[in-house]
């Protein structure tokens, strides 16, 4: 292909990609002069270059589009959705032409007069209602457009050129644009030829900052650097054997340079993920029209960089997922209104780095996934039996959308819903060593989380040995290493013939690497009693399991080489590599190992894992201490509230003033009983839960501590009984969550006044920011306020709170402690009230000392109200009053 032409094609398609984005932006913000200038300039350049290369069809379309844009820039035309659609339509036409051009190196035959006449009509200020209506309005048939477009062009465009070109008699053109038609062709041709030169000279300085390099060159460089890294590793290994080698110093240098070179070459391959997103605004915009939905696409972290190769591979899955979110995820405006949501649905794309991975989240606030419907569908389609379905967790069910041939959409649209797609998405992502997870709440939306490695070519891997063979496991999939032996704390236990490992109160399924790879002497190995083995805890999707190996060596940077085609069907390996010592080893693929050794499909998880992952990934879970006191049913308290678990000798319990006390850490600590049925033991040792804050400590008498579990603290109802916040399902059984505040007030009359029913109702889902330096009070008040129906966000100091403001988080009310280290509550209030988005947000002071002076100062800095720290009902009352006032004011 002609070099000039190929340059033009690359450049123009880049411009078009930018244009797609910019024009959609323009539609949202029609009065941004920068935007329209930029758009105009881009279209103008395309037109100019087309003329230069002698591409009349392209030029004509670009020209007419430019006319319309020129009018928009001069505020003669208003940006309307039909106008934008029309412009986008002409860009599409340009793309089609370019595609044909690329294929045949010549402009295809055809006629664009339909489009051009619509554009011209719009440029002349005529209403264009719809694309199909326009040809009727078009005053002139096919051959005339050249002429028609000249009329519209006259204004801005000509003026601009008039300044640049002296030889084309600008005055004449500017002066009488209207009668120009007959004279037009000649100057246009001249101008068109002039254009590129002008553009080039002005952009030359910018262009010289970067050069275009063919991808092949970069790929070759990468391969060579990979080889260099290998050779370097080999040399290092050799020299390591000789303590005082003369090669040591130069080798150090070589190593250093190689590392830098590697990083440099990697950098050339890095591209912002925004490149993969560039098409999305346009796609979403078109979708929203097609589906009649209002969609707000937000893209965060577009400058997060990742390897070109990875980028290419995730481009399509991402597009697919965004389409899906827009189509299936979001409801129609009327449905949203019914559900009490804003009419405009949100799709948020967020990309960021996290420990050698890129995390990409696709989040929508749509309808979420209906687990019940999925269950029914699975049954109906025979994917699972009733018993299987009943056993699956919601999470497992949700993951089924990644199964092949599965579609949740009731209606198959042109966009999606045909049941191909999500499985392909998952396959593509897993192919590059990534994982995709889904969490969805019915009615609230879904979040897909994609985790992918930064680069594929060189990875850090853990070298392990099993049965005298060495293997590499990519670090990415290694969560932790555990040494296990008969004597140590971690011991491999057998359930029938299944090995498991107890790890932090969880059972971890184990896979003997020797067994799964059918290594010759694997079975003898396992029988060696007392032998020390290592467990490589790996995570595939949300399934965590342990790979048992004999030894663990170093981690090493390895260059992944694909395995020979002869071995491609062995799913256990993702590649092979040459180590520093020159030996060839296989790279294990944890996905393959997980798949081959258990029935558990990737993505499914046991309940235990469920909790574990939640604990790590969401803030919603709370560690609960489950215990028994008095009655037989379990009770629970957030573990964070408990200072210590103690056992006291009942002999040491003393009684004073009707209150049982025990000497604890040099002080008298009151012992509180849950209720009358719960008694201090007659003899022996009595387990107690110690709660303390500052000087106060209190011991809660319990019969037995059962367990510590991670659970979502979803308190379902306010207990009518005093002393309980409500009940929550913890580990599958209904458990009463106790209200520590109640018992504290029992123990110390100055701690809390009498407990009362929590205020329910109108406070529904009000957002509250709680600022308090004492973790005890934060933990204490959070469940209390949540039960009262507030959505609580906590900050441990003023700076944290202000950081939330910077992040754009809004609250209905702020509750702040006064005495805090660093920024005091007064200062915080001043800051909040001084400026910014929280100016209108009421702020309630919380203090343990309420005196008139404080009250006065509080009011002066902008506190709406003042509540004693221990006065629980006062706080709730104040909050509902303050919020009611706020509503009235608004």
């Amino acid at each position: 292909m002609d070099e000039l032409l190929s340059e033009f094609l690359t450049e123009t398609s880049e411009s078009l990609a930018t244009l797609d984005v910019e024009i959609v932006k323009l539609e949202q913000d029609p009065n941004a002069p920068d935007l329209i200038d930029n758009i105009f300039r881009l279209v103008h350049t395309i037109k100019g270059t087309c003329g230069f290369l002698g591409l009349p069809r392209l030029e004509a379309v670009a020209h007419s589009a430019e006319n319309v844009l020129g009018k928009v820039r001069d505020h003669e035309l208003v940006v309307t959705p039909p106008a934008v659609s029309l412009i986008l339509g002409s860009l599409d036409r340009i793309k089609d032409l370019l595609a044909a051009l690329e294929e045949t190196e010549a402009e295809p035959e055809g006629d664009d007069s339909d489009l051009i006449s619509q554009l011209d009509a719009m440029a002349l200020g005529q209403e264009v209602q719809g694309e199909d209506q326009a040809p009727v309005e078009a005053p002139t048939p096919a051959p005339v457009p050249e002429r028609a477009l000249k009329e519209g062009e006259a204004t801005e465009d000509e003026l601009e050129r008039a300044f640049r070109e002296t030889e084309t008699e600008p005055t004449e053109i500017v002066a009488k644009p209207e009668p120009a038609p007959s004279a037009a062709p000649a100057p246009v041709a001249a101008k068109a030829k002039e254009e590129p030169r002008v553009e080039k000279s002005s952009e030359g300085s910018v262009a010289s900052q970067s050069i275009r390099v063919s991808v092949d060159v970069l790929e070759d460089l990468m391969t060579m650097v990979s080889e260099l890294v290998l050779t370097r590793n080999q040399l290092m290994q050799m020299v390591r054997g000789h303590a005082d080698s003369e090669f040591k110093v130069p080798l150090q240098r070589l190593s250093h340079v190689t590392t830098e070179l590697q990083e440099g070459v990697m950098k050339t391959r890095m591209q912002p993920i925004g490149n993969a997103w560039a098409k999305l605004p346009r796609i979403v915009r078109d979708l929203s029209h097609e589906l009649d939905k209002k969609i707000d696409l937000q893209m965060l972290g577009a400058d997060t960089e990742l390897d070109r190769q990875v980028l290419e591979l995730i481009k399509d899955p991402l597009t697919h997922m965004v389409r899906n979110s827009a189509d299936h995820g979001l409801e129609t405006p009327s449905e949203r209104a019914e559900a009490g949501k804003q009419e405009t649905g949100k799709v948020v794309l967020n990309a960021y780095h996290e420990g050698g991975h890129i995390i990409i989240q696709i989040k929508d606030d749509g309808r979420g996934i209906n687990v019940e419907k999925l269950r029914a569908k699975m049954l109906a389609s025979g994917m699972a039996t009733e018993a299987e379905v009943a056993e699956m967790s919601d999470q497992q069910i949700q993951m089924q959308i990644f199964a092949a041939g599965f579609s949740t959409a009731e209606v198959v649209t042109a966009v999606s819903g045909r049941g191909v797609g999500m499985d392909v998405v998952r396959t593509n992502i897993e192919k590059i060593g990534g994982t995709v997870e889904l969490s969805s709440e019915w009615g609230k939306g879904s979040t897909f989380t994609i985790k992918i490695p930064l680069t594929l070519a060189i990875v850090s891997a853990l070298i392990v040995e099993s049965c005298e063979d060495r293997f590499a496991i990519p670090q990415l999939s290694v969560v932790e290493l555990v040494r296990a032996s008969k004597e140590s704390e971690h011991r491999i236990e057998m359930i029938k013939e299944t090995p498991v490992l107890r790890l932090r109160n969880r059972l971890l399924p184990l896979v003997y690497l020797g067994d799964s790879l059918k290594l010759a002497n694997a079975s003898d190995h396992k029988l060696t009693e007392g032998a020390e083995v290592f467990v490589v805890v790996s995570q595939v999707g949300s399934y965590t399991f342990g790979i048992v190996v004999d030894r663990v060596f170093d981690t090493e940077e390895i260059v992944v080489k694909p395995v020979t085609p002869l071995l491609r069907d062995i799913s256990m390996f993702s590649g092979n590599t040459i180590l520093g010592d020159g030996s060839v080893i296989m790279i294990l693929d944890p996905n393959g190992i997980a798949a081959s050794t258990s029935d558990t499909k990737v993505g499914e998880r046991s309940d235990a894992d469920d909790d574990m992952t939640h604990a790590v990934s969401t803030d919603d879970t709370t560690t609960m201490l489950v215990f028994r006191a008095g009655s037989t049913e379990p009770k629970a308290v957030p573990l964070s509230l408990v200072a210590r678990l103690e056992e006291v000798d009942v002999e040491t319990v003393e009684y004073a003033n009707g209150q049982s006390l025990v000497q604890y850490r040099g002080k008298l600590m009151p012992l509180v009983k849950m209720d009358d049925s719960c008694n201090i033991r007659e003899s022996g040792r009595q387990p107690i839960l110690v709660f303390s804050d500052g000087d106060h400590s209190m011991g809660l008498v319990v019969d037995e501590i059962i367990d510590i579990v991670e659970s979502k603290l979803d308190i379902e109802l306010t207990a009518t009984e005093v002393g309980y916040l409500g009940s929550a399902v913890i580990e599958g059984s209904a458990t009463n969550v106790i209200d520590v505040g109640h018992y504290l007030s029992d123990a110390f009359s100055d701690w809390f006044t009498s407990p009362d029913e929590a205020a329910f109702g109108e406070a529904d889902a009000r957002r509250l920011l709680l600022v308090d330096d004492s973790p005890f009070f934060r933990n204490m008040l959070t469940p209390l306020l949540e039960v009262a129906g507030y959505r609580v966000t906590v900050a441990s100091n003023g700076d944290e709170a202000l950081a939330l403001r910077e992040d754009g988080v809004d609250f209905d009310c702020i509750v702040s402690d006064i005495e805090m280290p660093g920024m005091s509550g007064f200062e915080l209030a001043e800051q909040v009230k001084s400026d910014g988005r929280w100016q209108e947000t009421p702020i309630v002071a919380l203090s343990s000392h309420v005196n008139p002076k404080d009250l006065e100062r509080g009011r002066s800095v902008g506190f709406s109200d003042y509540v004693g720290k221990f006065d629980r009902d006062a706080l709730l009352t104040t909050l509902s009053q303050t919020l009611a006032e706020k509503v009235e004011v608004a």
Partner: protein
Amino acid sequence: MSDVNNTNDRSLDDLDDQQNKTDSEEYVTALIDGQLFGIPVLSVQDVLGPQTLANIPLAPPEVAGSLNLRGRIVTAIDLRKRLGMDPADREKSMSIVVDHHGELYSLLIDEVGEVLQVPMQNYERNPATLDPRWRDVSQGIFRLDGRLLVILQVQRLLDIIKVAAAA
């Protein structure tokens, strides 16, 4: 051998499969269990002495392991196994390295012989009674002085997956 004339623009692999129109052929000879085999010289990259092979778990039995040849990973194929002969000590085997579609394979043999140029007139088709496993990979036989040279087709030798599936 009807299309003898158009081999010039064919790939190397096809050359293995086709008779060249020149009147003699060059082969690297190899000895396995007393039998002489020939591999087209153009497909041979290297000849190696005994090598340490890295085990590849779960690989087909014909795959003996892998080795590092100047920074490239080479897959070793045990020709004795492939041809259904009695196993020998792989660690003592020599090997002939061939390039196939950009991948390197080392064919384990007992001993490497000289490079022979054999006249086409000595060529014979495979006897119909030849062991099917041999017939499958052999391209024909050359009559030499006092012995026979069995020509191996690299492409066929590497069709291990197919064989495994059929077995």
